[in-house]
């Protein structure tokens, strides 16, 4: 055993999980796939008093297309693998399909959840980036109420979100593919499957470009432009690379990060065009 001691609740219903969250609040952590949380517990970077295991909460283990609202809705206990291996994901949310191979490894995606990655809010993670790029939504539920936040309002900083201590990320909603939209995704990391140094996702329509960048600022950032080309696009990418406030770290310099934003940004936009 490596984690510090904790109480454990296997929640078989959403209500049981919400009751426990209402009672324990900040001292509780929700365990879904555990592919980030278990590592954090093993290193004792977190020492919660209560672990609320929702991995077997069947009503949260759902992935469905809501054609009326135009969303792919992924429940809190649904694994990344259960979305990645959907037969028609390429028609539903192509950008998600492009991003999955970059998310860690097959063995991790088998168990890691989509909502867990969103709730963890690592600034270099792919799923928060895709959700932000598409303008998706996060469904938060507490014992008292349910609220829905736009991705841009949900992510508030490095590993920080708008989730209150008694709330559960019950589901996330990825907008379905829209006619005329084209997509691009790429990232740069030391090795395939490692954390991205810079990750870029583009959504291009005949008259607009939006580019989402992860791994640079403290959260995914989206920039929207008209359908720019050539030097105008290069100039816009350069402005964006400075605006993101890249910093030096142990791996790469701020200058190199800006370079990656310009190059990868160009590449995904051209790929999407």
């Amino acid at each position, binding site marked *: *055993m*490596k*984690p*510090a*001691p*904790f*109480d*454990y*609740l*296997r*929640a*078989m*219903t959403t209500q*049981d999980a919400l009751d426990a969250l209402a009672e324990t609040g900040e001292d509780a952590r929700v*365990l879904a796939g*555990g*592919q980030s949380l*278990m*590592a954090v*517990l*093993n*290193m004792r970077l977190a020492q919660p008093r209560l*672990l609320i*295991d929702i*991995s*077997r909460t*069947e009503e949260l283990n759902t992935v469905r297309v809501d054609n009326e609202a135009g969303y792919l809705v992924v429940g809190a206990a649904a694994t990344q*693998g259960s979305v990645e*291996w959907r037969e028609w994901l390429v028609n539903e949310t192509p950008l998600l399909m492009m991003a999955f*191979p970059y998310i*860690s*490894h*097959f*063995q*991790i995606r*088998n*168990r890691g959840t989509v909502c867990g990655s969103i709730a963890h809010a690592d600034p270099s993670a792919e799923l928060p980036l895709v959700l932000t790029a598409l303008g998706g939504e996060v469904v938060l539920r507490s014992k008292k109420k349910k609220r829905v936040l736009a991705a841009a309002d949900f992510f508030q900083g490095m590993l920080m979100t708008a989730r209150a201590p008694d709330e559960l990320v019950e589901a996330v909603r990825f907008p379905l593919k829209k006619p005329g939209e084209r997509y691009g995704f790429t990232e740069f990391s030391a*090795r*395939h*499957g490692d954390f991205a140094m810079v990750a870029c996702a583009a959504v291009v329509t005949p008259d607009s470009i939006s580019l989402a960048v992860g791994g640079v600022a403290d959260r995914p950032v989206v920039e929207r432009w008209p359908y720019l080309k050539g030097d105008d696009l290069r100039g816009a990418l350069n402005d964006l690379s400075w605006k993101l406030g890249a910093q030096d770290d142990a791996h790469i310099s701020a200058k190199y990060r800006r370079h990656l934003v310009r190059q990868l940004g160009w590449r995904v936009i051209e790929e999407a065009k």
Partner: protein
Amino acid sequence: MSKASSNTMRQGETQRVALTLNGRARSGLCETRDLLSDFIRHELGATGTHVGCEHGVCGACTVHIDGVAARSCLMLAVQVHGRRVDTVEGLAPDQTLGDLQQAFQRHHALQCGFCTAGILMSCADYLQRVPDPTEEQVREMLSGHLCRCTGYTPIVAAVLDVAARRKQRNESPEAVHA
């Protein structure tokens, strides 16, 4: 199990976890914070599963949970109550190596063998889903494992070989009838 009610377990308390390990009903005692990897080795005595980094990077401890490959160091023992767990021991049920293991032997796809149990479990799951993978797909799947002996090349060869042999075996009856 689906009708089971929620279950709370206090820290320090031990509880019996019952599971199916490689097709046999087994049970053992654990605390809330016992990792599945340690539980399999220490409590159930199945030491084929190896423990490397203990935070999900190296892949040595990969097992199947209800048929799906996952890191046992990133799961708690209590989480597998009532579930099916398969480990490398299950690949050679009668002390005879399975076809995947034989391919590893033929291609010298291991040297020290520490990482091998996890790699075999990943390959077993992956080949069920993608029976005829490309070299690129095999390398992508293996990216979730660290091996410091082989340089991966013989592992890739072994996986492609076993996929080809399985394909040939599945197709040969048709060829005879044709």
